[in-house]
């Protein structure tokens, strides 16, 4: 018996688990994903309907519509990524690694854009604060609303930066590993 037969014998003698036991759990998880997608869609459509039947548009409603559009856009992007993930799951290992590398690059681009947009946002918030004495009269009507948005969103942007560092490291690791696998 040669070494390969020895290895095969030892390999096949490993104790194994029966994965059919997790089939019910997989079904539940898949169903939960479907329910989550439908609920997100319903919330989005209901929100749009509420804005559509509302009387005269106000800045708050316009902001709400912009927020909903952003959420729906992100949901659509997530669905598109999910579709890609489904296709890639059954692809060959090389094709899968190429997809992982492309996804990691797209994520790194997305994080770079987020960083620029966040920096612009922070500057945009800081400027009116710095020259508030001059602009207070202009923004008098929306002063409370704008300061609420600024105070509420700034910590979120800072938290986003912190979370981003971790996600960026993860994306960089994935890209490095996938490229190592694809290297000739």
């Amino acid at each position, binding site marked *: 018996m040669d070494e390969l037969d020895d290895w095969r014998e030892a390999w096949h003698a490993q104790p194994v*688990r029966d994965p059919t036991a997790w089939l019910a759990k997989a079904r539940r998880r898949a169903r939960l994903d479907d329910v989550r997608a439908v609920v997100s869609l319903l919330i989005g459509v209901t929100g749009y309907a509420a804005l559509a039947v509302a009387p005269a548009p106000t800045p708050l409603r316009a902001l709400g519509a912009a927020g909903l559009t952003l959420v729906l856009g992100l949901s659509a992007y997530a669905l598109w990524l999910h579709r890609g993930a*489904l296709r890639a799951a*059954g692809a060959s290992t090389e094709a899968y690694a190429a997809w992982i590398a492309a996804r990691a690059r797209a994520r790194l681009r997305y994080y770079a854009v987020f960083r620029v947009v966040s920096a612009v946002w922070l500057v945009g918030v800081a400027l009116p604060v710095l020259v508030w004495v001059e602009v207070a009269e202009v923004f008098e009507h929306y002063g409370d609303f704008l300061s609420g948005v600024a105070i509420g969103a700034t910590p979120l942007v800072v938290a986003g930066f912190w979370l981003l560092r971790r996600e960026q490291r993860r994306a960089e690791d994935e890209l490095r590993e996938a490229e190592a696998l694809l290297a000739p």
Partner: protein
Amino acid sequence: MEPIERVLKAYGPALSRVASSYERSPAGRDELLQDIVLALWKAWPSFRGECSERAFVLRIAHNRGLTHAWRRPPPHEPLDEVPAAGEAPDQLVAASEQRVQLLEAVHALPLKHREVVLLLLEDLSHAEIAQVLGISENNVAVRLTRARAALRSAMNPGGA
């Protein structure tokens, strides 16, 4: 019986072995195996027979395994081996040692070599390995030569 149940019954042991080659801890192995079952459940309707059923199942398992390995750096802990049923005590020790040694050696291989060795150990032909990995049969042969040498050296660190 649903098609997915039949597939899991047929390839369950192979899927379990793939999970054990990408994850050292028993809890992590179970988690990875669950991920593989979920990925298989979702991807199965898209199987159009462009490769063999076994190749498709192993593609999904290896792809999940790769993602798992990339996201979690392997912990430096000894492998937790459960004895197989029906082994006599003296055979049990020797067989268990050999299994652990092989699994340790497989874990020590770079991912590129590990996946090709695993498929070889699962009795796949060169053509089937090429289908799973998406590379030519010549490329499979080259990788296998390097991977077997790496496994041999990992199994016999003294060069015996």
